[in-house]
């Protein structure tokens, strides 16, 4: 019982957004579900990633301070065309190697050599990772619900680890932002976010992202976001 009481003390201290480092003990193995950045190690739960510890009654996890996007099959992401060949486009997807999209993985019937007429360097698209092969080459697809070329608009970037934070539970937060700003928004798992709409709306989206990026660990992210939407909506 004594041990538990002590544990609860840390819980209290650290669930308010304490920084933990790899190797830090964050509790005992028990009823808590472990999420990202926490693992069991001989009865103890230890943090495995530098970030903000989040504990609820049921689970414990770490929101990373930093982290890299590694493409995984099925990821939805934003890509920017950086080159094309007669049958393929090459996309920048924020990773050093980039990714490729074959004409047969698009909703269009593209004649050989006419890829540039459909998408050219600098164009943006909402895509899905179709396959990552053994040596890390990424194949994309544009066949699927919602996948498409995105005209106009602009691309903003946040840390990939914060994307779920912006989306919110069951997409509630991002839905509120879309409603509040009237902007069209596509979120990529690679941390790239495509936004289009009125200039004022885009600015509000930027402020919302700012609020999440600046203090991702502080509770009430949704409240802060709704506040921003309220202010700007009224103006």
């Amino acid at each position, binding site marked *: 019982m004594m041990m538990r009481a002590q544990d609860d003390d840390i819980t209290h201290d650290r669930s308010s957004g304490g920084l933990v480092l790899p190797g830090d003990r964050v509790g005992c193995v028990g009823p808590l579900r472990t999420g990202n950045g926490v693992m069991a190690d001989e009865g103890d739960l230890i943090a495995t990633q530098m970030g903000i510890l989040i504990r609820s009654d049921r689970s414990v996890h770490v929101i990373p301070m*930093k982290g890299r996007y590694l493409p995984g099959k099925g990821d939805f992401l934003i890509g920017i065309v950086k080159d094309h060949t007669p049958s393929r486009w090459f996309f920048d997807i924020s990773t050093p190697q980039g990714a490729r999209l074959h004409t047969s993985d698009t909703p269009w019937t593209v004649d050989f050599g006419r890829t540039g007429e459909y998408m050219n360097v600098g164009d943006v698209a909402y895509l899905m990772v179709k396959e990552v092969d053994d040596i890390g080459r990424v194949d994309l697809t544009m066949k699927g619900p919602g996948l498409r070329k995105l005209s106009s608009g602009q691309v903003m970037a946040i840390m990939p680890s914060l994307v779920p934070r912006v989306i919110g539970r069951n997409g509630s937060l991002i839905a509120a932002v879309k409603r509040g700003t009237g902007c069209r928004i596509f979120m990529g798992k690679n941390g790239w976010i495509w936004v289009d709409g009125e200039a004022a709306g885009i600015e509000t989206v930027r402020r919302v992202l700012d609020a999440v990026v600046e203090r991702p660990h502080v509770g009430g992210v949704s409240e802060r976001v709704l506040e921003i939407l309220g202010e700007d909506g009224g103006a």
Partner: protein
Amino acid sequence: MATRGAEQGRTDGRSDDEIRPVRLHAGVLNNAHGSAYIEWGKNKIMVGVYGPRRPSRQEPLRSDRALVRCTYNMAPFSVSDRKRPGRDRRSLEISKVLSEALTNAVLVERFPRTVIDVNVEVLEADAGTRCAALTAASVALADAGLQMRGLVSACAVGVVDGRIVLDPSRDEDNFGDGDMPVGILPSSGEIVLLQMDGALGPDQFGEALDLGVEACRRIHVLQRDALFVRYGQERASRIEKPHFSGYGDMDTIIMDDEADPPVWGEEAIR
């Protein structure tokens, strides 16, 4: 802690179990995914981490885990006589032992078929570079947001005139009887770096090892402080401006050898 050997003294006036001043910064480079800069005595070392990533060269990758690839390099101006640029046997060996020590710290099985590059640039060398490099490298890995079992902390133990001394200086390294770099994972206590050359008596070996491990725990406090300061949750005991300054508004941590270092495992539970 008793100060031993004070009557004989060391060339730089330290007590036998005293570490040279250590300053450590986390997150100092723009491009590297994670970075750390350490000044340990007169050693000045920059570490930059890239990864996990797919290498642009063809590499034999592991299908079950990431490859931690440490490259230790000394600047030509880092030592008294200009060092010829490029790799040599010493830097290759150090690169290998550092790669292996760090592989123990990183959860490499989470990133199959990738490479994690740890680039160590020694700008000035003054004995104990591999321990300083390892200490900074694990901070850079944490700074890169990598998943790890814990940080790696390191410190060397030396033998001078038959006495065991902590963190030998260049003179003590050159003219001493032995040098033993020790690196541990403080979170589990496992030893991940251990080398030795010279002469250690049957009774001395265990004593030297104990002293080294204890020193690593002191270094661990500094590593934590560097990351806490960098990420806005300051808990450093003493803060001072760095000599090699200019990392934005960053302050540096100075090792406070007088104060009893808190034992982290316990403090975290308290």
